[in-house]
């Protein structure tokens, strides 16, 4: 691209000191350090290391990575909230940041007062806020409550007002962190629409952190994958998402087939019984993306199970927030296994759009012990589904579980 980058990050690094200063910092601990400066285990934790990238006008760049990969730290440095330990960032143009919706809202202030305060915090001039005031109020739909302290607002009104102020910000560079994680469907839809329009209007730049892969895929022209504080991938969205998904299992044989054989037993045992392979299967064999309500099968292969009396399998499925959303254990169904592979099938996948991670375990029901257990053995995505209206495809609903509910006029 020939144009000047609007964001140029060079060798960004950020370290935190962990250990002795962990927990409440008191004068006491400071004095102790002065007295005995060399004691206390202090470790340096690198949240970011040598991160460089350019973002050009009109690009919408997604930053993805697991929890703790350094996404939020990167955004905090870009938004200048915190300074990097090393490296530098150059940005051309007005920067608007949405690290958290409603930052600086004060519960005692009225809706009107908060619009002005929040606007100023986000970097709008007073006359600018005044000019947009009516449209902010209308967009938020809080017309009759302007003189009411926001502490008396419902949480929905509160979020709507906060977002409405942010939506009227008119930045050249928009930095957005995970705002899709809060708020109702309507709110998420507006967020996405706003980000799309900011990008579409000439010359704007959007940097977007999210766990919502569907939103990343539809919005971003490019993704940066962070892995343990470093840039693991920077480029095409589809390619980057594949890379991100690959991060969760070092031994992906083909998409949807995860080889589990090459592990060192953390307990130091001989691993006479160990999980060999997990395949996530759709109608046409192994695949990575499924639709809500579709059929999904998990094929687990295990080594050395012949000798085990009453073996059982279990599967845990976790969402992007690391919450276990589905779990099944073959002891519950009473299925008897020998040495052969086991398959678990879910006829109608009850999960909303998102990325999911699979933990697999095997054990002996007879001895009541776990023989092997692999966290993050595999992963799969749930994408657009015929069950949803098109405009709601990208929006992650509250909760991960799809409810097979019927809506009708009563």
């Amino acid at each position: 691209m020939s144009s000047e980058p609007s964001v140029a990050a060079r060798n960004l690094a950020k370290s935190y000191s962990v250990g002795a200063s962990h927990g409440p910092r008191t004068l006491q601990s400071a004095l102790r350090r002065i007295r005995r400066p060399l004691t206390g285990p202090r470790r340096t934790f690198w949240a970011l290391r040598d991160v460089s990238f350019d973002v050009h006008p009109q690009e919408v760049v997604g930053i993805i990575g697991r929890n703790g990969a350094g996404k939020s730290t990167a955004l905090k440095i870009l938004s200048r909230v915190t300074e990097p330990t090393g490296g530098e960032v150059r940005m051309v143009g007005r920067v608007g940041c949405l690290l958290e919706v409603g930052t600086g809202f004060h519960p005692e202030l009225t809706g009107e007062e908060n619009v002005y305060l929040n606007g100023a915090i986000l970097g709008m001039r007073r006359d600018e806020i005044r000019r947009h005031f009516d449209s902010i109020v209308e967009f938020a739909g809080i017309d009759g409550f302007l003189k009411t302290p926001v502490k008396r607002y419902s949480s929905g009104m509160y979020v709507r007002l906060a977002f409405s102020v942010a939506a009227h910000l008119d930045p050249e560079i928009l930095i957005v962190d995970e705002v899709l994680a809060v708020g109702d469907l309507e709110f998420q839809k507006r967020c996405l629409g706003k980000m799309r329009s900011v990008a579409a209007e000439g010359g704007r730049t959007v940097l977007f952190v999210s766990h919502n892969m569907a939103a990343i895929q539809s919005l971003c022209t490019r993704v940066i994958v962070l892995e343990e504080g470093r840039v693991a991938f920077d480029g095409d969205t589809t390619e980057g998402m594949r890379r991100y998904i690959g991060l969760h299992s070092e031994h992906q044989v083909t998409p949807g087939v995860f080889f589990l054989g090459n592990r060192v037993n953390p307990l130091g045992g001989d691993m006479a019984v160990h999980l060999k392979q997990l395949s996530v299967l759709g109608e046409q064999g192994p695949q990575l993306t499924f639709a809500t309500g579709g059929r999904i099968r998990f094929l687990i292969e295990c080594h050395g199970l012949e000798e085990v009396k009453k073996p059982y399998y279990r599967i845990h499925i976790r969402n992007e927030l690391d919450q276990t959303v589905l779990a099944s254990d073959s002891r519950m169904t009473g299925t008897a296994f020998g040495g052969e592979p086991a398959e678990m099938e879910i006829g109608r996948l009850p999960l909303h759009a998102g990325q999911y991670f699979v933990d697999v375990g095997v054990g002996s029901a007879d001895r009541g012990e776990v023989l092997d257990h692999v966290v993050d053995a595999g992963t799969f995505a749930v994408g657009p589904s015929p069950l949803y209206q098109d405009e709601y495809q990208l929006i992650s609903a509250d909760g991960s579980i799809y409810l097979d509910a019927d809506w009708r006029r009563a």
Partner: protein
Amino acid sequence: MNISELWVFRGLLGAMTRRDLTLRYRQTALGGLWVVIQPILAASIFSVVFGGIGNFSSEGAPYFMFAYAGMLGWNAFSNTLSMITSCLVTNAQLVSKIYFPRLLLPFAQLGTKAIDFLIALGVYVVLAQVTGVSLSARILLAPLVLVWILALALGPALITSSLNVSYRDIGYMVPVVLPLFLYLSPVAYSTDSLPERYRDLYGFNPLVGAINAMRWCLLGRGDLAAGEILYSVGLAGGLLVVGSLFFRSRERLFADVI
């Protein structure tokens, strides 16, 4: 970060000042009246305890007015110092989520404290009419003395506020240490009533010059001691430089530690 950046963010400074002023007496029955009631009440208590029971000298003015004038200076100092000490921590959410020059938070406090002072000064003018204390043109210099007092508070406050980010101990220490200075400053009594041999030592407190100057403006009597003023103003300037440098050196850590 420099002065020009503070100018870019002046809108936010205004919004923060307005927020603090609006919030102060929200959900109080008497509202803004508290700005007036507080110094009157404090001066009344001083009148009873020191003027009445202790029979302290008041340089010939009614003791109540003498104490009120001293209180004006003292309140400006102590409220500024204690509010700035806690201002970063009370705004922790802002500090950790939004970029702005961190100096804005202490500066916003200066604005609200200056407005408090001007209101209390207005009350003094009214009280002077009631008690028959004559006002002189010197009262026009009171805002200048206020700037001096605020500067005297701001220097140390920049240090305590940035330390308070890492060590909340400071937040507990300041309200304990402040009253000590109230009694070490000529608020309830006049400098003249001190025994001669303590005067030099007493003069080390930079508030002595400032509060005497405030009283000189308001009561319109007595003389100013040039030495006291030079020492206090010089110290205020020095503390301001040290305080700003200290604040600036810690500033980059605020968002990580708070």
